[in-house]
């Protein structure tokens, strides 16, 4: 198993958000986590990525057989976990090119590889740009600065493609996307999807799952996975709404 989350409890400022979550992901699988707002979807993504301030009070996150709890965000990234942000951060003054080259070379250093030469880096950059139909000019601009919502999300997928992770967690990548951008983002994910990696899609709406077909759908409610199923669960949720879950839980 690539990722095995066991009885995970996560608190922020002493308030428990994730309350005993179990989730297993194998190589080659695409999982979708759905659920109403405020049930802990983004908290789960942040906790896996090692974001400071997210305190794991119980349980473990085992990735490739190692418990990654307590590892720094950079170490988790080097191990091959990528987080696509719901709200990508603007970083004025740091160009995408410089930023990605620094990131990529730290990954390579961790793997005991030599840094990429300028031309190796550029050819990789150009190859991956095509994947998400990113304009050439964009990579010379500061990271996300003044980008439209669609450009920011495309940039996330572009970075994912450059870093070639084993496990990609995409947090509400579909929010704020028009239908064309959504298609491009989905196409990027579908192209990268393979037997040696896995995806965890966090989404509020079923829409994204029309383009990226998941193997499993989980419903997160009040910090726990309350229901799991195949892709048809997403359609069911779309039709019935999340209130259905609440009612079922009360019963």
């Amino acid at each position, binding site marked *: 198993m690539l990722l095995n989350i066991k009885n995970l409890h996560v608190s922020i400022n002493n308030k428990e958000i994730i309350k005993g979550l179990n989730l297993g992901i194998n190589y080659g699988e695409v999982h979708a986590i759905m659920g109403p707002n405020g049930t802990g979807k983004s908290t789960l993504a942040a906790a896996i990525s090692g974001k400071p301030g997210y305190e794991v009070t119980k349980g473990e996150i085992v990735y490739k057989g190692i418990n990654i709890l307590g590892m720094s965000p*950079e170490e988790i990234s080097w191990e091959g976990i990528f987080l696509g942000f719901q709200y990508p*951060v603007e970083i004025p003054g740091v160009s995408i090119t*410089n*930023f990605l080259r620094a*990131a990529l070379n730290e990954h390579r250093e961790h793997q005991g590889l030599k840094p990429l030469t300028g031309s190796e880096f550029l050819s990789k950059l150009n190859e991956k740009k095509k994947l998400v139909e990113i304009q050439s000019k964009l990579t010379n601009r500061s990271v996300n600065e003044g980008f439209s919502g669609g450009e920011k999300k495309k940039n996330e997928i572009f970075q994912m493609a450059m870093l070639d992770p084993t496990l990609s967690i995409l947090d509400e990548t579909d929010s704020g996307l028009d239908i064309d951008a959504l298609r491009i983002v989905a196409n990027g994910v579908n192209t990268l999807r393979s037997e040696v990696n896995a995806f965890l899609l966090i989404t509020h709406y079923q829409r994204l799952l029309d383009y990226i077909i998941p193997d499993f759908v989980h419903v997160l409610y009040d910090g726990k996975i309350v229901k799991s199923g195949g892709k048809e669960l997403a359609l069911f949720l779309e039709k019935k709404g999340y209130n259905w879950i609440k009612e079922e839980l009360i019963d």
Partner: protein
Amino acid sequence: MLNYYIVDMEKKFLKLNDKFNKQTSLFNDLINLFEENKNQIFKNDTKKISEVRKQALEKFSKSELPTLKHEKWRDTDLSKTLSKNYKYYFDAEENNSEIGKTFKCVVPQLDSLSFTFVNGWNTFESELITLEDGIIIGSFSDAMKKFPEIVEQHFAKTFQPEKDFFSLLNTSYAQDGFFIYVPDNVNSQKSIQIVNIINNDENIFLQPRNLVIIGKNSKLSLIHCHDSVNQKNSFTNSVTEIFLNENSNIDYYKLQNLNNQSTLLNHTNFYQNTNSNISSNSISLNGGLIRNETCVEIEGEGCAANVYGLFLMDDKQHIDNHIFIDHKKSNCVSNELFKGILDDNASAVFNGHVLVRQDSQKTEAFQSNKNILLTDTAKINTKPFLEIYADDVKCSHGATVGQLDNEALFYLRSRGISENNARMLLMYAFAAEVINKISIEPLKNRIDDMVKKRLRGELSVCDQCVLHCGTPEKEIDFEIDLSKI
């Protein structure tokens, strides 16, 4: 604690002593000192210059020593600087000219001419040099002898020396410094670099006095450096007056890299005639206490004054940037951008005062000061200030104080950039806005490099340089070399 000076005539030096704490003692003693060394100070003076000095001393004796009670000094405390003893030389020390003669500051690919001063005294072989394009460069003392009319016409003629305590003191005592005269219609491609080195075995007090005159339709790029060789105490009270005639331009860079025991009061006074342009950029990398006091008098229409600054301070360092821009004529633009990063217990002051007088219509004036505080104990007092009496103007001001953005830091780290490198990347990106204002490419590259070294906690000196400027307090583990990106 106030102090006073005593003089040892034989050795010709001055001591600051803390036995007496009445201001009158200080003034009486300074005035006595002036009287006793009059002959030496006046040695190269014309009658008129001597007269100006006497008047300055007269005003000085009626002015007040700045303390925290004075509005302009309320956040910059000089008491520590003034509680030490310093030597004051009325003559160049012989042994010190060696370092000046052998020292070379080589900035790769920079087409420049370098002049070195050690402890405030020039170390040139010849007196005044006339370059191919007619620019005259040399020491201020030689200029008084050779070009008395030019010096008389400009010496202490800018606004500040008339009012400011330390400027008056400088006007009274100053004996050496640099003199640059650019004739009309000279567009110099070469940069002139003035390096002030402090190399002292004992604490010293020095007062350089610099004069720059740029003729009509001419351009000058000037790099003005303050460096220290060792870790001794020093107190520099420097005054620079820069006159810009019609359609003239100056690119002025101040690079400050002094030890933590040094105090630098650096007064720069610009006087602008019609259609002249200033671009001034002060890069303060190290120093115990630095105060850059910049005054711009805009006396003609169509002028632009761009005043930029970057300061990176740590330990207990203190930096104070005081800017005063006086828009006396209409259709002019001024633009201030100061950015700072403060670590440990460092403190900073920004005070930008723009005065737009009643008749100065169509003025555009912008002020911006942005700061990053890396610790809870670092401190900035910022005061952008517009004083506007005209009604048809476009002005704005703003200041921000913040920390490194934690969201941005996590974003970079989640991509595999380690924490130190991510912090460094964010700090460098913040500083780059000021560095990018440097229009001389080789200089920009060098300063870029020095800023990176400074942010990494390395000594911000160049390879093979004899200067040993600030001492970094802590090691920062930094593995990727951003310059290779």
